[in-house]
């Protein structure tokens, strides 16, 4: 049997190369994966525009709806500064590249990554580094809107940075659930629904009014809700200045959620990588 051999007009220069592959460093692996995830953002704006829009929308609408009522009921209360923390959490919660990771699994690119010497943990951490960067970027328009509405940070410029950092850390802690679902199910629809997990946490807390205004049972539930303490830490920066107790509680709440979500997430990664 004879095959037709097509001679192309241009032939690749396949000279023997002295280049030899080698294991890159862990940080190099993480940054390579993060770089890829970040380059994908401009081509996947649907992943970032809706959360920002929702955050900005509710920020404005809630102020229009509740500002007069709350400030009349509570003396010296700044509802706009109060609401900015809620808007930020609405904007950054659920932001992750987990849906992109599912697509990698679906189209086989995840296998291509596994065929390289890249460290397996770096694949996940690289995506998470990108998530933190995206979350930080998403807080910018919300903070700018806050300034435009006349919100003043009692903690000063450094407080703004800590505010953004806390929001990004919360975003990362919550993103672990998305990655866990992505790696466990490989199902894009399931990953997209991960944000629904946040709904009870968002409403069973002091999102719209201070805890002092919550009825008994809701205040009890809020006291167990980690979002309450994250909101408290963020609000302390806008409304009170440097309140170390509130900031410590916020960090502790983020740590608790992160421990749970990352345990699930890394367990799912182990399951996905199981070769037996």
């Amino acid at each position, binding site marked *: *049997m004879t*095959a*037709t*051999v*097509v*001679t*192309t007009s*241009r*032939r*690749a*220069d*396949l*000279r*023997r*190369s002295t*280049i*030899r*592959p*080698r*294991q*890159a460093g862990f940080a*190099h*692996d993480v940054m*390579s994966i993060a*770089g*890829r995830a970040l*380059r*994908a953002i401009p*081509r*996947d704006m649907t992943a970032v525009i809706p959360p920002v829009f929702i955050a900005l929308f509710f920020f404005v609408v809630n102020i229009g709806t509740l500002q007069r009522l709350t400030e009349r009921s509570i003396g010296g209360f700044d509802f706009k500064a109060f609401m900015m923390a809620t808007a930020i959490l609405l904007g950054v919660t659920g932001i992750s590249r987990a849906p*992109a990771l599912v*697509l*990698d699994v679906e*189209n*086989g*690119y995840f*296998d*291509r*990554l*596994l*065929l*390289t*010497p*890249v460290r397996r943990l770096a694949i996940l951490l690289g995506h998470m580094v990108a998530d933190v960067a995206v979350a930080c970027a998403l807080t910018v328009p919300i903070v700018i809107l806050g300034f435009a509405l006349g919100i003043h940070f009692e903690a000063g410029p450094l407080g703004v940075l800590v505010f953004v950092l806390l929001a990004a850390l919360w975003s990362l802690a919550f993103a672990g659930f998305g990655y866990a679902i992505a790696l466990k199910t*490989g199902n894009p629809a399931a990953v997209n629904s991960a944000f629904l997990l946040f709904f009870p946490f968002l409403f069973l807390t002091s999102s719209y009014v201070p805890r002092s205004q919550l009825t008994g049972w809701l205040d009890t539930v809020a006291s167990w809700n980690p979002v309450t303490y994250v909101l408290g830490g963020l609000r302390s920066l806008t409304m009170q200045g440097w309140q170390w107790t509130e900031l410590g509680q916020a960090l502790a709440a983020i740590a608790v959620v992160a421990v749970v979500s990352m345990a699930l997430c890394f367990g799912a990664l182990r399951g996905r990588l199981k*070769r*037996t």
Partner: protein
Amino acid sequence: MTQLKRRDRQEIGHQMAGLGAEATAMTTLTLDDVVIGNEAHHPRRRRMSAITTERLVRTFDGVSAVDGLDLDIRQGEIYGFLGPNGAGKSTTVRVLCTLLAPTAGRATVAGYDVATEPGQVRLRIGVALQEAALDPRQTGEELLRLQGRLYGLSRREIEQRLGELTELVDIGDALRRPISTYSGGMRRRLDLAAALVHNPEILFLDEPTTGLDPMSRARVWEEVRRLNAELGVTIFLTTQYLEEADELADRVGILNAGRLVAEGTPVDLKHNVGNDVIVVRVDGDPGVALASLADVAGVQAVDASGCEVVVTATNGASTIGPVAVALANGGIAVRDLTLRTPTLDDVFLELTGTHIRPDESIDEEIEEVTQ
């Protein structure tokens, strides 16, 4: 001399074949040193073998996809792994590429154990899986650059390899477009380039031309030949296309239901079947024809598959007449009668009693179950 053409190697190999196994082995080592001419920096390397498996088994939920596979593939060889869908080809590749662990037995690639030293194996192999594993959101250039970074190449080395591989990919400015805009052939070529970025010693190509048009297929064949001839890359090629194995492979292993049923050069395998093949397409039960042809002079073997009866003969030209007469005497309605030289499909038919069919999907089903 840095390279020998493939036919030169084969010729010298054939000349040495008469010197006995030991002499052949020594000669092959010398040839490999000349042809491959690299890898002195791998002291653990077994000089002779690029890929070995010993009683390799891979099961999924108790079902064997690979069942006691023994392979020994030499450096610089193009090894064709031929079998129908579901034979276990892709599973074997995934074990050898460290994506799956063996259930039992042992496999080494580039001298390293796939189960205990997967990291060393990954550094030395390039893989183009059955489905081009590409990220459609990246551009071709981004994908190749990232691939280089993950293999620890410096920026300068990546630039160098991109320059070398751009011609291979041969998609012009499309390299800067998202992969989602590529045609099937462009994706395959990019996938091949991604497998080569880090200059691997061993290249696994899992059905590299499935779904390609004849032109694209011929181009892939050409590149595979060049990679082997010009760079001495060992190539493990799975395929269900007989002509692909026939055209490209130095040796062919025929896999059926997870077992290696034959191995050798395409010429030797076909020679074992017989000199000529007479294919008779009949109306009705071919089993009746089997009985009629069994005693015809010059017939070596008769097999039936579907409505076809395949007769192997030492001299087809002198046997085809008596075969036609015997069929007529048996009252068998013949639709057509063809005389040809044996193909690898005839080899497969003789060994397994069936043709290689593309509609069997045990492998895929097994993998679906495990997922």
